[in-house]
């Protein structure tokens, strides 16, 4: 993991002092609310429905046990004993008081954390593949790149007042687990014909009101040119992005309006004018950062763990959890374990402070002190010995964290929705809970197989509903909550935006509707097709038909 040096540490401390001063100037009237709001947002402080909300950056989803314990402490001391992991792998606390935020920031700085740029019209927390350093198909760990971007983008003097927010994601594997095509910039690490490492640069993806899939504007960017190239992209966006309409201000609209080719040309022109060396980090600096992400000292283990096999043979529940929640590790004898924060009936992504401590202890004891937060709002223990899996699972069971549903229909992504969020048009969490209850049966879930349900409480799409195999969008219709269902979205490198199945449904009708959709799949699937494969083959019609039936059925 990256560790702060004296410069990083000082920078974050000064940022805390700066925010403390900004709060004081808000209170004495030097700053009015219109001026203060972007300043607090750039430091992760929102005003939500019931209270302020604090969003803490977890850069590229990587956490140490010490950091997670500190989050638990903050949650108990300044909040209500729980936190929420978001689809941008950040943590949100729902009840902090503005007067306490500077003290919370100090506690975060103590463990090398901050809230810088977790909101606002600036470059946001950079995300990466949660199986970085784990996946066998990885070309290079994306996290040194993400850390380099984190530093470069922190309080960037030129890019802190962009037309709109700007999100960057990096993946280093053939498979995309970071939804890079739904980002303002998606970076895919690859090797060219000469064997050199570089990036495919995709620009203009994004969800929200106008969902778009990112387009490639550079198929191979040499690794050492990254920051200068990003600077060119951001400068073109800062100058040319629309500022007349908030809903048209994201870079995706600019790319769409002028075309990817023109956008790419503008970027290349700007790039040619830049003084690259003044921007790019020295090779020594890149190497310094990369060294922090070197592999941990793995043991030499047999590929097959006798203890693990015996545990599975003896305990069905453990065997199921292992079959569903484990991810193959590149090192023999190891596994990466997904810890689902989607227990049936709980709010997706919510975790109590007591559970945070359990997770921290497990990471410390079994996973080289490291945890990952996923965009699917789960936690990963990235490097555990298979020999230890049974003991880990037993601890998880006691903590209510052993739900065996990673990637299944009850592993639902849901934004906080109207239960917390002031922008929401409808609630998300109760819909997720009702669906989880409906499909709680383990055998049925396994039979259905991989199926991503994603729920957003408004058109902002924090719950990624557009790229859910089944997406649910909560809206308001005639003073009531109404839910629109989309089908066929895909968050991988085959990225696709789901299509609307028809008019919105009342909350109580959503579980039935989803069940009917699933039944169509079960009735029509061929040769072990997954849900999304069937949807692609069958098209929307058979699914639309059952939703129509549902709509017109007598109540």
């Amino acid at each position, binding site marked *: 993991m990256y560790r702060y040096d004296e410069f990083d540490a000082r920078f974050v401390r000064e940022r805390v002092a700066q925010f403390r001063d900004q709060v004081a100037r808000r*209170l004495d009237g030097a700053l009015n609310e219109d001026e203060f709001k972007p300043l607090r947002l750039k430091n992760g402080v929102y005003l939500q429905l019931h209270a302020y909300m604090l969003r803490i950056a977890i850069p590229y989803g990587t956490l140490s046990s010490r950091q997670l314990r500190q989050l638990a402490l903050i949650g108990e001391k300044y909040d209500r004993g729980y936190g929420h992991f978001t689809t941008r792998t950040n943590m949100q606390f729902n*009840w902090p008081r503005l007067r306490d935020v500077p003290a919370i920031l100090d506690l975060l700085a103590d463990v090398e954390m901050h809230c810088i740029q977790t909101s606002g019209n600036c470059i946001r927390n950079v995300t990466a593949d949660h199986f970085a350093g784990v996946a066998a198909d990885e070309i290079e760990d994306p996290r040194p790149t993400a850390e380099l971007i984190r530093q470069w983008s922190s309080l960037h003097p030129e890019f802190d007042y962009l037309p709109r927010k700007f999100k960057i994601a990096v993946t280093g594997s053939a498979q995309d687990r970071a939804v890079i095509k739904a980002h303002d910039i998606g970076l895919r690490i690859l090797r060219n014909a000469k064997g050199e490492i570089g990036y495919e640069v995709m620009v203009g993806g994004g969800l929200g009101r106008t969902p778009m899939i990112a387009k490639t504007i550079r198929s191979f960017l040499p690794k050492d040119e990254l920051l200068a190239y990003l600077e060119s992209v951001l400068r073109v966006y800062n100058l040319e992005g629309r500022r007349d309409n908030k809903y048209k201000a994201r870079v995706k609209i600019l790319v769409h309006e002028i075309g990817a080719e023109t956008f790419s040309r503008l970027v290349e022109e700007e790039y040619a004018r830049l003084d690259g060396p003044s921007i790019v980090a020295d090779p020594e600096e890149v190497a310094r950062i990369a060294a922090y992400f070197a592999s941990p000292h793995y043991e030499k283990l047999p590929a097959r763990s006798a203890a693990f096999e015996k545990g599975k043979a003896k305990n069905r529940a453990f065997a199921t959890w292992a079959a569903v929640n484990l991810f193959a590790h590149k090192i023999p004898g190891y596994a990466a374990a997904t810890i689902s924060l989607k227990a049936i009936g709980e709010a997706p992504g919510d975790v109590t402070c007591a559970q945070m401590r359990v997770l921290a202890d497990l990471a410390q004891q079994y996973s080289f002190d490291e945890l990952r937060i996923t965009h699917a709002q789960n936690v990963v223990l990235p490097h555990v010995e298979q020999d230890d899996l049974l003991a880990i699972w037993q601890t998880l069971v006691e903590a209510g964290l052993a739900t065996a549903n990673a990637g299944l229909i009850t592993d639902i992504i849901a934004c906080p929705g109207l239960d917390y969020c002031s922008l929401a048009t409808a*609630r998300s969490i109760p819909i997720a809970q009702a669906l989880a209850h409906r499909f709680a049966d383990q055998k049925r879930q396994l039979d259905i197989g991989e199926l991503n349900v994603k729920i957003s409480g408004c058109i902002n799409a924090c719950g990624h509903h557009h790229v859910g195999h089944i997406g649910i969008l909560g809206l308001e219709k005639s003073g009531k909550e109404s839910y629109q269902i989309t089908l066929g979205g895909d968050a991988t490198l085959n990225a696709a935006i789901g299509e609307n199945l028809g008019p919105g449904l009342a909350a109580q009708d959503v579980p039935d509707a989803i069940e009917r959709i699933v039944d169509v799949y079960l009735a029509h699937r061929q040769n072990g097709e997954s849900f999304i494969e069937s949807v692609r083959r069958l098209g929307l019609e058979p699914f639309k038909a059952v939703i129509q039936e549902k709509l017109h059925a007598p109540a």
Partner: protein
Amino acid sequence: MSVAKRPPLPVILLANDLLDGEVVFWTGKQWSPEPIEALIAHNETGASGLEAEAAKALAANRVVDAYLVDVSLDASGGAVPRHYREKIKTEGPSVRRDLGKQAGLFNIARNGN
């Protein structure tokens, strides 16, 4: 921040406390975290009075996001927001009945000013 368009009567005035974020209601004398203490305006004059209070409190950097909310009256004459959003805002998360005002948990001293 300006006061939004006036909703249908009767109305109450709510806002968030600037320092603590708590949802607070204008009682006629002070800001209270208790929805039950909200002053209910039944006519245009009353609503205008609430709007004036909102402007004053915003200018004094006491609250933020102040606006009028249309309510219906429950059996005991208490104000209940008509819209589901404002109802959740005055109660707390519907998925956590153990949190927020509905559970008697406040981020601000009750009856304080």
